[in-house]
């Protein structure tokens, strides 16, 4: 199973690219799942779908899921509260459900919930040849994708600290100090066990994200701001060890006639295109013209796919 992730600034065409790449791969005989992790979904819209809850089969071997983010947050917090309840049995008078609503707005919870959906979806769809994740705009995407890495370094710190605590406890026990009923070994310490569980989850995700079978595709318009953002995303993802191998330059203006009003716009685009070719010289770069009609629906997305043909090859090759 291979994982493809589309990343880029809002409105540049991530969803269109994800959906279209999916159709191209499916047309070549692979089974494909396209997943939208964007809280403001438009995958269903891009495919002109009416019903859009759960997994929707659009074509044979081509399914999509729009992850309900609020639902994911709720489900995630339910799991956590269950865990807490089972350990805090004596606190059953304390109605933790009451706090769940507040928690759903706590910083970082949305990213956590989305990452946990990411994990669940790749585990449950192991039979697919490709899973394509359509991500939210860059900022949130990067926060979601870097979460397991940040989380891991915190967990390692906490583990070291916990080890030091257990060491001291053992020392004291060895010289005959009475410590009461506290865990002194890593194997009997529930905190260590929980830390290890979380660490395992992180490592699974890091393994998946940095695997050879996973790649990010940058989507950008040939304009200064999207380019700057794409560069930042590229640097960040590379520093995490997530490979970024393809780049879609979308909405390139190609005019048949000379339009004076658009002259400076076209010049900016040309300048940016040259810059993109320099900055991302090791990537497969494809250009998609600004289309007269919005590429929506399966047929239009097939036409869009013609422009990203070498990207399809790249995905199949690697």
């Amino acid at each position: 199973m291979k994982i493809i992730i589309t990343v880029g600034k809002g409105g540049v065409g991530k969803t269109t690219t994800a959906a279209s790449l999916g159709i191209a791969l499916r047309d070549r005989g692979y089974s494909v799942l396209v997943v939208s992790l964007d809280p403001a979904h438009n995958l269903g819209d891009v495919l002109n779908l009416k019903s859009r809850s759960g997994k929707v089969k659009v074509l044979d071997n081509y399914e999509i899921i729009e992850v309900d983010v609020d639902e994911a947050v709720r489900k995630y917090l339910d799991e956590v509260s269950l865990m807490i309840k089972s350990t805090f049995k004596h606190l059953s008078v304390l109605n933790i459900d009451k706090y769940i609503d507040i928690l759903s707005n706590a910083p970082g919870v949305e990213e956590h919930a989305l990452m946990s959906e990411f994990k669940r979806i790749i585990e449950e769809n192991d039979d697919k040849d490709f899973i394509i994740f359509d991500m939210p705009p860059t900022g949130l995407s990067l926060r979601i994708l870097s979460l397991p890495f940040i989380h891991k370094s915190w967990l390692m710190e906490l583990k070291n600290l916990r080890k030091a605590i257990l060491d001291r406890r053992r020392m004291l026990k060895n010289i005959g100090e009475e410590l009461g009923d506290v865990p002194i070994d890593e194997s009997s310490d529930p905190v260590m066990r929980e830390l290890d569980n979380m660490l395992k989850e992180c490592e699974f995700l890091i393994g998946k994200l940095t695997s050879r079978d996973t790649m990010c595709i940058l989507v950008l318009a040939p304009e200064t701001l999207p380019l700057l953002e794409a560069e930042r995303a590229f640097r960040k993802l590379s520093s995490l060890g997530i490979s970024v191998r393809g780049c879609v330059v979308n909405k390139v203006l190609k005019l048949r006639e000379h339009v004076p009003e658009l002259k400076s716009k076209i010049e900016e685009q040309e300048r940016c295109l040259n810059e993109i070719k320099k900055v991302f010289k090791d990537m497969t770069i494809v250009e998609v013209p600004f289309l007269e009609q919005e590429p929506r629906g399966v047929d239009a997305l097939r036409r869009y796919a013609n422009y990203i043909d070498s990207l399809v090859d790249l995905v199949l090759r690697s």
Partner: protein
Amino acid sequence: MRLRDIFKKVITGISETFKERSAELIKLELRELENAFTLLIISPLIGLPGPSTITSLRLLPYIERELAQSLNISRRLDDMLAEMLGYLDIT
């Protein structure tokens, strides 16, 4: 009493005091480490940078004792300096 016995007594005396003193120090160190650990766990819940709300929630149930201890200490923070100096025998 033979000289050797006196010597022996002195040595045992010293090592006993040493043991007590070092036990006290390790205890102090242990408590500081436990405090640091607890603080890190509750930070995200009180708006300080820390691992994450979720990590905190998952660990919280297991650090009840440490949490109580930290709260206790923070309540009598003023005595802390005196206590430390006491441990180090600086008066």
